[in-house]
């Protein structure tokens, strides 16, 4: 199984994960090896095989659209890293 080349910096950016240079290098090699192993799936013929997203598929699961108790504001904000006036504080997005 041949290792696969993967642009770790690009994929890490998509995943919004910053990596140290040596971390990226190590990850690239490991992921290349894992993807090389995964290539074995290419040996299988999957023509006309339906994909499975869920092993026990249920369709149109709904519940009554009733008003129910939910977390009070102070508890919903209880684990937030920054809050003010009952709101989450986020970095400036628009100028």
């Amino acid at each position, binding site marked *: 199984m041949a290792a696969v080349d993967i642009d770790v910096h690009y994929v890490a950016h998509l995943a919004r994960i910053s990596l140290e240079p040596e*971390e990226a290098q190590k990850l690239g090699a490991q992921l290349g090896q894992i993807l090389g192993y995964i290539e074995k799936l290419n040996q299988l013929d999957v023509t006309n095989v339906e994909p499975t997203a869920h092993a026990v598929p249920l369709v149109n699961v709904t519940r009554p659209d009733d008003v129910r108790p939910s977390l009070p504001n102070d508890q919903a904000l209880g684990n*937030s890293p920054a809050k003010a006036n009952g709101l989450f504080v986020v970095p400036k*997005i628009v100028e």
Partner: protein
Amino acid sequence: MLNQLTISNLAAKLAKREASAREAVQSCLDQIARVDGRVGAFLSADPADAFKQADAADRALAEGTTHAQKPLLGVPIAIKDVIAVKDQPLSCASRILQKYVSPYDATVVEKLRAAGAIVFGRLNMDEFAMGSSTENSAFGPTKNPWDTSRIPGGSSGGSAAAVAADECIGSLGSDTGGSIRQPAALCGCVGFKPTYGRVSRYGLVAFASSLDQIGPLTKDVRDTATLLEVISGLDNRDSTSVPQPVPRYATIIGEGIKGLKLGLPKEYLVGGIDPDVNNAVRIAVAQLQKLGAEIQEISLPHTDCAVATYYIVATAEASANLARFDGIRYGLRVDGTDPIELYAKTRGTGFGAEVKRRIILGTYVLSSGYHDAYYLRAQKVRTLIQQDFLKAFEHVDAIVTPTTPTAAFTIGEKSGDPLQMYLSDIFTISCNLAGICGISLPCGFTTSTPKLPIGLQLLGKPFGEETILKLAHAYEQSTGWHREKPRL
């Protein structure tokens, strides 16, 4: 020593008022104080909260509440750190959630409380349940109680070690690719992965939503049946929980197994299996036959593709699920000059190496240009794997295999080689992909010194929990491996 008892034996003592729930909690806490410095199963325990629950249980017992009404009344059950317990930490053994305190109870925890259990302690695990050794915990590894230079398995390593070391009476874990059964096998206890949809996932921090299930880890099969009966059932807060009635597992397990057909997959007893494991499993199969089960060889031809399929499906789902950890609404925040930098720094700092590896792999297999080649293909192979099992179950009632190819490996042995670590899950992974149920129970020990437990896996049809519980119970009662305890 109350901490050494099974759920059923402790419940009997509590019912006869030979012991109190407070004494049971004290006994578990004493054992934690004595051994957990070496085992490292618990991330935290909240003695004051546990005693409060114990006193309430003792009052209920004094007022005449019975275990027929509340099967777990006064029984201390410890919880993996991935399941929400109100006002307790919920860190998933990750720095990104280090200070998170859960504002609500998971459905399984509500059900435990309704059954009278004392819900206590946070059990160590691989970060976000990603791993097979509990070495990926941000807060240090858990050790195997049978040999503390070895891993307890994972990701529910704390849940298995705590039960094996008698630090609790039973525990809950979660299983995405073997994370209950594999540590149960390596620590010498019983672990159960229910059929997908049998147990509500509400309040379970999501890793791979189409594979995750919560399940019990206990000292014998009867206790597993009791806990499973309590936590199972439809929940309208989890749209994937299935509207099937919950059988009386704890009653059904006593029924005989004569005439049940057991399949032995030829793909599972091949190269790479430790000779001690192979030997123990073969003897166990002969024992099941002696007890009246009919053994026949079956084939699960796509076994060899299960690990590759799993590491596409599970990482893809994980990359989407863990996108929520962005430093905005909860958890760690590391500031940046703009929101994108804040996200990247928060996640780069907060996640450990294995979690980053899996999120990046999952992002890659879903990314533009690769989705069809990896993710869609894996979903199709998943169909083939599921069909393997459904075809086999047309001929047999259950399938018997080793739980793991080897006994517990040493700490550090595989942590530098993720692919080798992934391959240690080779016998447990298909069960999650197929959505069926599985149990691991002790079936012997290695011939090495110190001796290490070996696990037998029984796989059942979708919602065929009672069949594998019956088989497991009959086997266990005829052998007694589960009574062996590690010296700590």
